[in-house]
């Protein structure tokens, strides 16, 4: 990058040495490209310990007199350190941004490491991505680095995401990565905030964290990097470092954005007269008279658009203020944030208040203490509706999805403006009114605080002790008024006469980490870093839920359960879990050329079986910086850096709930007596397994990091193989045993893949620059074995339908299983004896099922076969940033190829009944006048088979973000006394190119359940958002 170095003119012009005594020596440090002042840069007199920092105008002052010219060493994070000779006062020193990653320090488990010495696969999320507006930081991870895949469960603000690093290892449990926030380990457990009082999709515990507090995110992917986290490293580790103060003056920053969201896509449903015609056809097939005469059909007209009535334009705003600074001994940052996002579905939204303090102080030369504290309160208003739908009905009971099913012939409102509840086509309640009046809210209060003390016994030997706590408290409120159709226990608010539930949950995690680090370089050749530690973590959680029904009025809603007529049985729950660990790591580097890292962790987890509490997780990593070899010099013009990495290791997973290994009993009641009274029974509901142990993932990784043309092109390639054995598998038992499953260590899964990351600086000159990044990842997941003698099983789809998914040896987890179809049956087909589906009466105009093998006479379940998987063949993203003077333009495209979704919502909609609406695909149904239709004839008979029609290609390309910003020049800034001011407009989720018919090709109705990934049973539709914002720093 040296050719971009702008050397200050006066450095070159030689002046006579001129001794100056007792006068001030000052200068400015600026960015070589933008000439913007750099605040907090270190200016050191070479050969002395005397150093000062630049202020917010980039100015530095040496108050004691110096001999000139002075030899200075100027350094600043993210810039190349410069040694220069300052001839006199008023010198401008321009620093060049370091584009090479190799001199960087990266955060690794329990410490940092020079990127050159790294053996493991560690990827950092780019700063430009992190600066995008988002509800929760997990929204920012998609496409950020190769090998991480993020699928939002739904478009609901504050909803959970499914996050996978290098595919899913486990079938039944724990595929989420481990999060480490400022050194504090977080097992994200969304059940901590979901007490069961409210319903609907789970609330995301990660959304309690303000994404703009985050300075950096590093993702540890291979065993060499993650094995130090042992039993929780198998799914990758996401290391989050929050922003902190820098040495220098006080900096005050304010940023804000305002946005407007609209639904990205609506489903195309029948209008009233189209629907009436469908009802008539069903009547005819039922042998009953038509419901609507021709004139009545015409009179129905377009009818009501229920879907649109449930949606709105939604406003969104974010404000944050931070103050930071520091001196030689202390650094601090204090920030506050208010975030408010209305949902595009009526009566839904997300709000967050957030505060953070980071502080560190060098108490003495040897003792440093630091603390990170954040507190937040989040409020989620979600549309009601069970995430798994109603177990006893195939129609989704969700507040929004039930609206899609509502007949367009039913008016939404009466003439007087009140909601219509009397239409024969409604079940006594109005779904829009249900949505508006049902309270379904979650309040989450979270405090995450830790204190660390570091004591340097010698220059090389440091003891670090950390104590921290993560306190999560949640309150959930639910009220279904006595006129609403929203769920109320096993019935509806209408049925229950009003139903209220309140739930409280608290989860407390204590963590103590004690590590000893020895870091020494011998003879300037042998760099040795040794880490040893003991950590212990205890988690305690409690929930209590109370509910009552039969309210004489709806005035006090959930706030006065005592005013109810009937109390339901309250519930409470509590768990304790402990993890104790010993860890050790040795990193050795010879000349920063040959590097080796060896680590070992021993973990003991309370929730495992009595006979197998402890697990041991070793790893080894080797890397070679080829560019540092002498023979490489001749290539160095073209190839700036080249590194080869090779690692192997084992990590674990014990992410099962407490008490999973114990044979436990559950209450089961009955009534006896006259009058009847409740009699409490107790019976086993879980088989014990004292041998329950760790799930182990063995991973091999090979990688190359290449920097070309003075690191204008950086290329990273990784290939890996992971095999997970002793799976913690809920082994399905025959139901006649009295138990549905038993938790055992059985079976194995493999993941293998390649990852490519490419960062290029296409153009870089004084006025214009253009950078691009490409991320590509390919993962192949396969079940290698299940319990002996069992080749496959169907995870129970709790919706009461034929399960569309299968877990089968040789197929990926999350595979779809069903029939192939080929249009509709014709008379010719039947005449020539085309095989028909067994057990179902099939006639002309019905769906034609295809046999697996030619010559079959009947289609049976043996003709079901693999129809694809929710796991993509590959994922990719492409981002670009253009800078022209003060303007910046960026866009970010992300996509996946080859992933399938089971469009269960469409399957349900395309099964017409006399009362529910259907999609416009039904217009092309078979009839005597439309014998070549694509949809079967309308009947009242049920044939709900899993077919290829509903396993849809969900490959997509999404423009996740496009933004245009302008950063004001110094002259404008000085007028408002600011150091930085940027204004921008951006659009998120502007378009999606996909063949998928549902709301969004990124859907995960069953949330984090790996075996049911890719079932779309009607999600909260996603929004496209237009934002305008500004960031200003004083």
């Amino acid at each position, binding site marked *: 990058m040296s050719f971009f170095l702008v050397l200050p003119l006066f450095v070159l012009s030689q002046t006579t040495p001129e001794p100056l005594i007792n006068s001030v020596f000052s200068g400015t440090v600026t960015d070589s490209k933008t000439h913007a002042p750099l605040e907090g840069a270190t200016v050191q007199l070479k050969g002395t310990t005397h150093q000062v920092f630049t202020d917010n105008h980039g100015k530095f002052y040496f108050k004691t007199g110096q001999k000139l010219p002075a030899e200075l060493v100027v350094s600043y994070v993210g810039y190349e350190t410069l040694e220069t000779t300052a001839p006199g006062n008023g010198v401008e020193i321009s620093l060049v941004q370091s584009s090479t990653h190799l001199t960087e320090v990266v955060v690794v488990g329990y410490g940092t490491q020079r990127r050159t010495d790294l053996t493991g696969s560690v990827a950092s999320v780019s700063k430009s991505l992190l600066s995008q507006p988002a509800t929760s930081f997990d929204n920012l991870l998609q496409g950020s680095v190769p090998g991480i895949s993020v699928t939002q469960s739904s478009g609901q603000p504050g909803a959970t995401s499914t996050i996978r690093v290098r595919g899913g290892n486990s079938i039944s449990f724990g595929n989420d990565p481990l999060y480490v926030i400022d050194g504090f380990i977080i097992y994200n457990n969304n059940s901590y905030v979901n007490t069961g009082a409210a319903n609907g999709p789970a609330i995301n515990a990660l959304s309690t964290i303000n994404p703009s507090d985050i300075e950096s995110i590093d993702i540890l992917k291979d065993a060499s990097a993650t094995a130090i986290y042992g039993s929780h490293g198998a799914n990758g580790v996401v290391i989050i470092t929050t922003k902190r103060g820098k040495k220098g003056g006080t900096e005050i920053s304010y940023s804000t954005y305002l946005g407007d969201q609209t639904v990205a896509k609506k489903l195309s449903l029948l209008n009233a007269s189209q629907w009436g015609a469908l009802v008539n056809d069903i009547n005819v097939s039922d042998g009953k008279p038509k419901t609507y005469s021709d004139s009545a059909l015409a009179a129905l007209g377009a009818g009501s658009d229920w879907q649109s009535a449930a949606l709105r334009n939604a406003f969104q705003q974010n404000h944050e203020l931070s103050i930071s600074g520091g001196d030689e001994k202390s650094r601090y940052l204090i920030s506050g944030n208010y975030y408010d996002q209305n949902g595009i579905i009526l009566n839904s939204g997300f709000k967050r208040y957030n505060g953070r303090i980071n502080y560190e102080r060098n108490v003495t030369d*040897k003792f440093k203490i630091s603390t990170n504290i954040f507190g937040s309160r989040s409020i989620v208003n979600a549309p009601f509706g069970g995430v798994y739908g109603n177990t006893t009905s195939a129609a989704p009971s969700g507040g929004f999805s039930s609206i899609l099913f509502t007949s367009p012939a039913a008016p939404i409102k009466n003439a007087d403006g009140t909601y219509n509840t009397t239409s024969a086509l409604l079940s006594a309640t109005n779904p829009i009114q249900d949505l508006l009046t049902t309270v379904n809210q979650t309040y989450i209060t979270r405090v995450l605080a830790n204190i660390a003390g570091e004591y340097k016994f010698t220059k090389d030997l440091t003891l670090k*002790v950390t104590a921290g706590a993560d306190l999560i408290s949640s309150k959930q409120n639910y009220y279904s008024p006595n006129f609403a159709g929203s769920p109320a226990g096993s019935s509806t608010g209408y049925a229950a006469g009003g139903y209220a539930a309140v739930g409280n949950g608290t989860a407390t995690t204590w963590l103590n980490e004690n590590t000893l680090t020895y870091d020494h370089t011998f003879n300037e050749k042998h760099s040795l870093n040794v880490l040893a530690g003991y950590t212990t973590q205890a988690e305690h959680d409690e929930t209590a839920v109370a509910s009552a029904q039969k309210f004489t009025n709806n005035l006090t809603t959930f706030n006065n359960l005592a005013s109810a007529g009937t*109390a339901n049985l309250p519930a409470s729950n509590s768990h304790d879990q402990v993890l104790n660990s010993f860890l050790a790591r040795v990193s050795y580097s010879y000349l920063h050329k040959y590097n080796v890292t060896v680590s070992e962790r021993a973990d003991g987890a309370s929730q495992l079986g009595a006979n197998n509490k402890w697990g041991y997780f070793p790893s080894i990593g080797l890397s070679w910086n080829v560019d540092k070899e002498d023979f490489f010099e001749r290539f160095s013009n073209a190839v700036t850096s080249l590194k080869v990495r090779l690692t192997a290791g084992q990590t674990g997973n014990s992410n099962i709930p407490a008490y999973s290994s114990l044979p436990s009993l559950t209450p*089961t009641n009955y009534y006896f007596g006259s009058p009847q009274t409740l009699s409490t029974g107790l019976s086993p509901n879980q088989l014990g397994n004292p041998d329950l142990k760790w799930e182990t993932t063995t991973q091999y990784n090979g990688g190359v990091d290449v920097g070309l043309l003075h690191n204008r092109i950086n290329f990273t390639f990784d290939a890996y193989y992971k095999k997970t054995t002793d799976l913690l598998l809920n082994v399905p038992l025959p*139901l006649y*045993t009295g138990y549905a499953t038993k938790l055992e260590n059985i079976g194995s899964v493999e993941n293998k893949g390649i990852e490519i990351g490419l960062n290029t600086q296409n153009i870089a000159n004084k006025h214009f620059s253009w950078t691009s990044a490409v991320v590509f990842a390919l993962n192949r997941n396969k079940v290698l074995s299940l319990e002996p003698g*069992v080749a496959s099983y169907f995870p129970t789809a709790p919706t009461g339908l034929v399960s569309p998914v299968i877990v089968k040896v040789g197929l990926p987890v999350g595979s779809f299983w069903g029939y192939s179809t080929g249009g509709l049956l014709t008379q010719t087909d039947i005449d020539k004896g085309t095989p028909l589906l067994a057990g179902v009466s099939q006639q002309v105009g019905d769906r034609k099922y295809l046999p697996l093998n030619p010559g079959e006479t009947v289609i049976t379940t043996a003709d079901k076969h693999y129809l694809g998987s929710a796991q993509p063949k590959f994922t990719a993203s492409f981002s670009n940033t253009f800078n022209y003077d003060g303007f910046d333009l960026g866009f970010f495209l992300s996509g996946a190829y080859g992933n399938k979704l089971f469009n269960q919502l469409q399957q349900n909609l395309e099964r017409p009944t006399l*009362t529910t609406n259907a999609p416009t695909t039904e217009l092309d149904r078979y009839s005597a006048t439309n014998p070549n239709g694509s949809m079967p004839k309308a009947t009242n008979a049920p044939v709900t088979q899993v077919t290829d029609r509903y396993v849809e290609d969900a490959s997509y390309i999404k423009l996740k973000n496009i933004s245009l910003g302008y950063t004001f020049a110094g002259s404008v800034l000085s007028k408002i006394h600011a150091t930085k001011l940027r204004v921008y407009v951006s659009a998120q989720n502007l378009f999606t190119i996909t063949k998928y018919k549902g709301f969004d090709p990124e859907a995960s109705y069953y949330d984090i359940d790996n075996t049911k990934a890719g079932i779309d049973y009607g999600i909260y539709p996603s929004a496209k958002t237009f934002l305008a914002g500004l960031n200003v720093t004083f």
Partner: protein
Amino acid sequence: MKKSSLILTISFLTAAGIITSCNKLTEKPNSVVVASQYYKTAADATAAVTAAYNSLNSDPAGDFPMYGRQLNLLVDNNSDNQNFSPSNTNPDVRALGTATYVSANSRIQKNWQQHYYGISKANVAIDNIANIPLNQFADTSLKPRLVREAKFVRALLYFNLVRLFGDVPLILHDASTTGVTQLLAVKRTPKDSVYLQIIADLTDATNLPATYSSANIGRATGGAAHALLAKVYATRRDWTNALAELQQVITAGTFAGATGNYGYALLPNFKDAFQKATKNGPEHIFSAQFATGLGAANTTQFLSQSFTSFNTGVFPIDCISDSSVVQIFDNDDTRKSVSFYTTVYNPATGANVVFNNAYTPYLNKFVDYSLSPLAPQNPSGVNYPIIRYSEILLLYAEVQNELNGGPTADAYTAINTVRTRAYAGVPHYLALGLSQFDFRDAVFLERRKEFIQEGQRWFDLVRRGINPNTGNPYLVDALKVIAAKSAGIAAKDTLYPIPQVEIQTNPNLTQNPGWDGH
């Protein structure tokens, strides 16, 4: 400065050490009861048996309870008495209303599961109570009584299973006590052996008390065991043993050989067999208990979700009658108005609302009229009768007819007693001089009228076997005449398919004839 930093460091370390010094890996099960802590006292034994009864009126996952609708789907919805409602959106339920179900049908699977879960709970009770020392029981008769109650429940559930599925795995010990491994690869036990176990369990259960104290009403009695045993023998066409058991239940002095001293009798009004106020009366030999207003963990049944509004356009959620069943009643028969309704009083308007559409009349027996008709009916507190005394009388008539090559005077008396009650005390005697075949027909017709919605019809149609006039199973003939079911029904339907998941998890299980691949 140096000193203070050392002190600071030490105090910091000490504090951190204290906070986290004693994190043990042993589990503290705060919120669950672990098996090793349990099955030690009489209260534990009682609770274990209560759990077995629970399988009759609840589902652990909140699904339809066995006797609150789940079984009804298989034996009433898939018969000539009921159809699925046009507004029902559950394809599996609809399949059971159109005889197009397959082995993956979740309702068939759920019935299988609920029966076996109940059997599992009964086995847990039987296995564990045996190990509780007798001195734990203040009343030493309690220990054997509890075991016999569990055996009664187990026998009832196996009796349903063997009739629904034929040969079934016979599991007599629970996986939590014996380990699950040996259960994984079992084969289906021939139904004759299953019946032997049912008979053995019920025979032991006949030693149960004839009556209970008021706090224990609803538990299985010795009379209930005899009654169920009679039904088992009748199903096996073991008429002699059936007669012997019936004579134990039929109140002494009413028929020749009757020695029953359980006080069983018909309630004067047919309606009272399905009222909350008259539940567990002299006619109710054994019932699944349902209650309203107990708030805490109230049971719900789904047999009477018949009106959620007075909107006549809204279809009842699930249970509608087939038009053929309404036509078998004449208007003097009180069972017609007890079994069906078309008119409901609307307290909000003070008007009677008449439901009249292609799918009416609606089914009435389990409607709880003590609840406001404005509210839905799933907390209905009407008990579900599993055996009523009228069935004993009809079985007696049937057995007499079978044993004697034609109806005896007692056979006529028995069936006419049931009929007279149905016609509100006005004698409507069956024509005399019927042949054995015609009398059999008459008995089954009477059973159809008497037991609408009571989980009998499909069993009755299957039990009759092949109709000599058509050569088809009676079941097929009966369903052929119903438009929605005619296309799907076939001889294979006289047994339900073994649920697909069971064969998947245990390939040793064979499928029933005609069901392979369905």
